[in-house]
């Protein structure tokens, strides 16, 4: 028993640290073999992480598994503690899957300073895995911030013309939110007796509704910027357009998920009263719906295919927020599925646009035409990914958006109806682009000479397509694994809401009872007056 426990926590440890070792290794390998080395490391990490799928046992309840903890800064109560549960499992798998794909996708794209690039990619993987696996708020914050550094350099060094502007904007925008979150973390730490930064300890800290609302503001802003939730999204299109293809892939598929993950993992359980207060729910769901509609609208008029896809990311994240703030199992599961689905489909779309760009050195939709006959395979894959992005039944997008809409409909039917309109909008911006690029007649000579997918490109895209279809057709294994952890969060929110209502009611009835007591000279039944636990 003990040995198996050790070997399991060892598994998560190595998944987390191997990319860092790989990152250092890539720096010292000869230039020519840098990409292969990086690919090997990331593929190895992926293979290791696949075993998590079976090692993680949803039957053991909602807690962390494969957990391990070591004191890091003892005097300050900071520990290096990591673990995996039904929420982080999929984020970790997504990260380890996307990283080798992005690395393989950059083989032809990145031509200068290769060692630095691949080293940064692996370093980024390390930092993101750290975010998803840490169970200590201090550690979480450190990893959350450190992800900025490699992404800043990836956009800034290998990006397009306005790369520096985009990189700096990305950095400043996202660190604004996280710096306020730091104050929030430290406030909670002080409130909790300055003993520990462990998430489990933070959950026990009693906070009043006002405090929760303020802290919700600090944490929520950090994650809302990261997601990005409309109207904090303006850094995203810039970063996406300027970033090199692999950078965009990682950014869309993995980095944005840190924001939504933060909402699910931290905001909901930490501040159950704040998130269930009607104003917050309406505001957040409203922003989600607004993001879906406005960004669909903006996407529809983009001439640049990459920018169009960037805006669709914001729209998808709107669905995620909608699902999260439905505050029920269905909505939350939908949100989780969209997070995975978006990682697969948008990643694939960015890769495909990158492939088109490598062939034609342009991303303008109007410059392409009639590619379907020249490159049938590329067209097919593009169609599948676009369908997943729109949410056509049978693809992963449908499962997620459907669940999240049902969840939202249960609590806010109006919002859900408007959001459902967004699905139509998605078809409205996605299909004309596909028609223009692949089906319209356009007698450009270069299009006729375009090559179809190479073996490397097929290797990149196949796993993503498999994931899209699997999630679309048979999502049960995914949902089984995430259910216990999600249910626990929902229960927490529900309990907090109910006890709060009971307390509020009891305060009222207590007043009445006191009045009665004066008349009947009997004590009120104190046992009905429950204290709020959180």
């Amino acid at each position, binding site marked *: 028993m003990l040995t198996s426990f050790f070997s399991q926590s060892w598994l998560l440890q190595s998944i987390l640290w191997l990319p860092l070792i790989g990152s250092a290794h890539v720096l010292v390998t000869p230039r020519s073999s840098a990409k292969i080395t990086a690919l090997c490391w990331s593929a190895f990490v992926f293979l290791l992480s696949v075993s998590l799928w079976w090692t993680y046992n949803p039957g053991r309840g909602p807690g962390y598994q494969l957990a391990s903890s070591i004191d890091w*800064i003892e005097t300050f109560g900071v520990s290096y503690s990591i673990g995996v549960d039904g929420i982080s499992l999929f984020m970790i798998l997504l990260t380890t899957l996307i990283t080798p794909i992005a690395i393989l996708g950059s083989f032809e794209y990145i031509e200068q300073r290769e060692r630095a690039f691949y080293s940064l990619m692996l370093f980024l993987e390390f930092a993101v895995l750290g975010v998803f696996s840490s169970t200590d708020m201090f550690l979480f914050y450190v990893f959350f911030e450190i992800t900025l550094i490699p992404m800043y350099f990836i956009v800034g060094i290998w990006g397009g013309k306005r790369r*520096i502007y985009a990189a700096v904007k990305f*950095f400043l925008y996202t*660190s604004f939110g996280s710096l306020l979150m730091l104050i929030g973390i430290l406030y909670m*730490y002080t409130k909790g007796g*300055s003993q520990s930064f462990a998430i489990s300890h933070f959950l026990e800290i009693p906070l009043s509704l006002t405090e929760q609302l303020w802290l919700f503001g600090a944490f929520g802003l950090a994650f809302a910027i990261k997601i990005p939730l409309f109207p904090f999204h303006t850094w995203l299109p810039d970063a996406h357009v300027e970033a090199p293809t692999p950078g965009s892939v990682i950014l869309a598929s993995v980095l944005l998920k840190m924001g939504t993950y933060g909402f699910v993992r931290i905001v909901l359980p930490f501040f159950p009263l704040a998130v269930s207060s009607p104003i917050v729910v309406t505001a957040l769901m409203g922003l989600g719906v607004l993001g879906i509609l406005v960004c669909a609208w903006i996407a529809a008029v983009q001439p640049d295919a990459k920018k169009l896809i960037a805006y669709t990311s914001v729209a998808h994240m709107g669905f995620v927020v909608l699902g999260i703030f439905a505050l029920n199992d269905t909505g939350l599961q939908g949100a989780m599925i969209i997070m995975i689905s978006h990682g697969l489909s948008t990643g694939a779309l960015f890769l495909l646009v990158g492939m088109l760009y490598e062939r034609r050195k342009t991303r303008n939709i109007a410059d392409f035409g009639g590619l379907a006959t020249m490159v049938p395979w590329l067209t097919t894959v593009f169609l599948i990914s676009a369908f997943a992005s729109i949410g056509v039944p049978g693809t992963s997008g449908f499962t997620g958006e459907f669940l999240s809409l049902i969840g939202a409909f249960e609590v806010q039917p109006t919002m859900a109806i408007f959001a459902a309109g967004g699905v139509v909008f998605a078809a409205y911006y996605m299909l004309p682009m596909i028609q223009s690029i692949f089906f319209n007649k356009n007698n450009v000579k270069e299009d006729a000479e375009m090559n179809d997918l190479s073996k490397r490109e097929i290797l990149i895209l196949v796993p993503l397509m498999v994931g899209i279809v699997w999630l679309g057709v048979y999502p049960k294994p995914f949902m089984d694994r995430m259910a216990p952890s999600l249910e626990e969060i929902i229960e927490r929110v529900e309990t907090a809401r109910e006890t709060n209502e009971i307390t509020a009611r009891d305060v009222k009835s207590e007043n009445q009872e006191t009045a009665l007591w004066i008349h009947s000279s009997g004590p009120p039944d104190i046992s009905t007056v429950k204290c709020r636990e959180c």
Partner: protein
Amino acid sequence: MDFTNQWHYLLAMAPEIVLIGFAIGLLLFGVSRDKSQDSMKNRDLGWIALLGVTVSAFGNGWLYASASSSSQGIVTVDTYSLLANWILLLSLAMVILISVPYVERQKLQAPEYFALLMFGTVGLMVMVASLDLMLIFIGLEIASISIYALVAIDQRSSRGAEAGLKYFLLGAFSTGIFLYGVALIYGATSSVNLVAIADTFVDGQSNELMLLVGTIMLAVGFCFKVSVVPFHMWTPDAYEGAPLPVTAYMSVAVKSGAFLTFYRVFSVYLEGAHHSWSEVLWGLSILTMVGANLIALTQNNIKRLLAYSGIAHSGYLLMTLVANNATSQSGLLFYLTAYVLSSLGLFAGIVFVSNQSETNVDVENYSGLGVNYPFIAFALTVFLLSLGGFPGTGGFIGKVLILQGSLESGHISLAVALVLSTLISYGYYLRIVWLMWMKDPLAQDADNPSSPTVVPMILQLLLVFTLVSVIYLGLLPGQWIEFVESIAIGK
């Protein structure tokens, strides 16, 4: 050792006395040496100075065993002053190391240069250790006069002379205010001894108004020295005009020494008047953090930029005085250590880029450094991030401690100001970072004779040492936090 007789008092000053001895030796040597033969090179003088610092540091370590937290004299040997001595001696040693090639290349008067650096450090050490306002004043003057001279030591540099004069005039003015404050405090409490002054708060036998005005004037005097907005005007000019290593010295040693004294006097001995000065310092702190960082955004000269960044750091440090609790005290000490190490590393890199002279001091000159000198650019990036307080570096842990301290005292406004100004500061720190990594080298650099070629060994060692320490403080800060938590100010 219990400091019962006067010999023991002398021993208590051993580190200072050693430094004075070596400095006077260097001066005498400078007078007596035969200039035509040039028997001894400037480089060797640097090593002698370094030897002096080492001996002094050993003396300091030896005193550590007999540190006590109570003392009656005018000088105290508590762990606080000994830690301050460590920080000052470390800064001095590293500045001497940066100076050696610089002094040689710029043909400065080496004996006087090194002696002045050592005298300045003695002044700062005396200041931190003293329990008597007059002695603090004397220490402050020893340090200041040495620095005035150092700023203007390059006789061929008109900017240096201008900077020296400006610094001197404004410094003399601030000294006047400081002395006026001391006089008023003496008038109110009839003592210049800090312990006695602290007692009058307990007894309540003091003239409230006179004491208040005196305290504020004393604070203004200190604010001048640590360059807090709006008393910072001299800083950018003096930093820009001074020789590079002297700029480094001012921004680390003078700032640490002056601030540590500031903290000792106000947080412990004038703590009784905390309510009256803390609000003033609260305002100054926010003004300094936000103002200095905003101005720094527009600077193109690296020395001026670092001057404003240094001013902003004074603002962060002031927060610890306003909060004034145990966490913020360890925050102050931790932050100062991280600040000193990152700044010194940064200046080592700047001295390299400037080719041990006063060229290439524009921010633009850092373009493409990452292509040509990846290690130096990497080290500079880490130092800049540490100054900005980014996770993984010592500066981050320092900032967290300061934030924590101010939250414990309920100053959420200060915490918010700190993080917002940190965000502003990313703006200019990152500018250097992107110039280094994301831009191509300037075209003229190829045939520019002043652009550097080889990295001197000393600078490399310095960079490695500071880099390792800054990352160590960032990743494994536990031991150092425990150490600074054990530091006590004698009462």
